[in-house]
């Protein structure tokens, strides 16, 4: 595929350049391109200029390869491969190196603060980049997983706006579970 350049304009009127193949990682952009409404610059009023380069970086890495991004989204491990004995070992090794490399890249890529994470989630959602959405949302989910409500509040800097009664009630519901246990 010829690599036509596409220009994206951020919400604060800055223009960025991206290859068409890379841009196809985004469903939204893909539809615009395929729809033939491509005349010069695509305006993205919901993505600011400090997030857009980050998005483009992801698209460049993942443009064109749908398979591997999917695998990464599954945690990088293809479960069938572990069990089924009849697969090509060489192929598997190469695949593994590639996945490892991609994982490392993702680790570096995902090193940013929470505000960026939020913005990136919104941008990925808006542009329909499934891989990026999975990646970012998974990061946010991992900050919730296994935490108590207090820890979640601390992680995301959220204040509880429950009234004391509501807090009380929630504790009561928890107790209900335990009380029946005590009666057993």
């Amino acid at each position: 595929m010829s690599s036509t350049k596409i220009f994206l304009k951020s919400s604060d009127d800055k223009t960025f350049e991206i290859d068409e193949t890379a841009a196809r990682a985004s469903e939204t952009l893909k539809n615009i391109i395929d729809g033939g409404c491509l005349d010069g610059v695509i305006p993205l009023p919901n993505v600011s200029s400090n997030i857009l380069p980050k998005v483009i970086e992801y698209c460049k890495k993942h443009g064109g390869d749908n398979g591997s991004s999917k695998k990464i989204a599954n945690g990088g491990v293809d479960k069938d491969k572990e069990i089924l004995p009849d697969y090509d070992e060489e192929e598997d090794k190469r695949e593994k190196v590639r996945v490892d490399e991609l994982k490392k890249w993702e680790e570096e890529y995902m090193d940013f603060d929470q505000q960026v994470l939020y913005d990136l989630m919104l941008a990925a959602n808006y542009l329909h980049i499934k891989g990026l959405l999975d990646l970012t949302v998974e990061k946010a989910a991992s900050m919730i997983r296994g935490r108590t409500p207090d820890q979640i509040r601390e992680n995301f800097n959220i204040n509880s706006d429950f009234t004391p009664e509501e807090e009380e009630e929630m504790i009561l519901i928890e107790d209900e579970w335990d009380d029946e246990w005590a009666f057993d």
Partner: protein
Amino acid sequence: MTLNFSHRPIFPANPSEDNLVSSIRITNGYVVEGIPDKNGDGFGKPRRFNWEIEDSYDCRRDRVDWGGPLEPISNDILDILPSDPFGMDISATFTAITGWIEDMEADPENYVRDEASGKRGDYQFVAGLNFIWNRAMRFQAEPGSIGIGEISNPVGRVDGWVEEKEFGDDSCDGGFVSVCNVEEFLSIGDDDSRAAICPPEDSHEAAGSCPLGEGEAPHEALLFALGYLSVQDLLSAERVCRTMRSAVQNDTLLWMNIHIDQPLNDRIVDDALMRLTSRAQGNLQSLSLLECPRITDDGLKRVLETNPRLKKLSVPGCTRLSVEGIVNNLKAFKFFGTPGIKHLRIGGLYGVTNEHYEELKFLLGLDNCQQPEAHKPRFYHSGQLSCDDDRAIDIEMCPKCQNLRLVYDCPADSCQAKQGASQLCRACILCIARCFQCGRCINDSEYEETFCLDLLCSSCWKQLLNCPDRQEEKGVPSPKHTIFHQETRLSVLLLKCAFHQHVASQMQKGYYFSEKMQFVVQLDLILV
């Protein structure tokens, strides 16, 4: 700890009346309300305030502390009972166990999620040990990868969000602000006591100055993450703040596939299950209860009655469910004229007869001879009872013992190479012993026995031993499990014997233990 100020201000508006019957007492520093019937406040149900109150309501319901049911229930019984009836030196054992739990929690990241259950872990002697039992098994089974299997509904959720969120996209900030406003307005109207009691900033907020950005309310994007969480985590998330609560509780998509496993499974009761499933508002599609010992046939019946669209039901290891109950429930369910359940998982259910099996197959819409051999092979793994393949029912007749159980295939090359012989290495787990890691048969080869009496083939055992080195190279701290295993192997063996004797004596006294535990203990005693 929260105080309950109820709907009335701390200082009564009409002191003359309240001076007669003081409505507020101070107990151990907690403000506690008296019984305000006089004012007709209309408390529909008795409220329990704090466990410091000894005299109120039901003594058994008041938790004195987290010290477990022994203490709260039996303040008086304890005096009568000998402290250590079986000569087990329980306190020493207990200390050892607590030590392990601490060790596990010290391990970063992986075991953070255990804290909640860890807290419950020292709840009860047996529960605590069971917990260790299960955990220990898990270290070996999946080092460093806790969490991947946690996602309750990984795929498909995002699409849902994408659809929904498109509306809000045009005005990200605006939408967010308006949400806050609604929340705050709601809280104003909620009750006036809040305004009276809340600290100044709070009432300031309530007056309309909305928190901008982060710091006060969750970011809109954070709600995307909800679709990636397990039930346990959703329950934590809904207690964070109002926005999260309404997002969790009102999104039926989050509750269409409910999967309960560790650590909720030990706690969930019929009523709680009912509440959770009702959040799907009748759209529940799959319900999976992994080893939930407190769910009863009746509870399941109520869930089925209110969720006519249920297609998949998985109840492996739910010891209180009976096969009769399941058959009857499915019959009634089919009678409603619903499409009916198409996938049923009852692995490990006791007492399934041929008639039950035929009836279940009929209820699932299977023809008698249709359960074909053409399914993809199923391998034994980590003793898990859930099998997520395309079969309509998970159990089948074991070719060797003719019992209706989970039947496993063999992944070993030697067994698979001989085409005809592959049928030979196909049986339930009792007929052919298998490695709990890779699932291969270990009839002739070398194997190791683990803490929980699971069997490991020699290659998996080696792999497990090598794994910390590999991870250390990458800079990941070595998982605790290997060290745990080596250091405590001897003490564990001793403890195992002691514990099994304890369980045996409890069993004679009529206490209930799971089938696996009974089997394990009997086996152990024979060996000893």
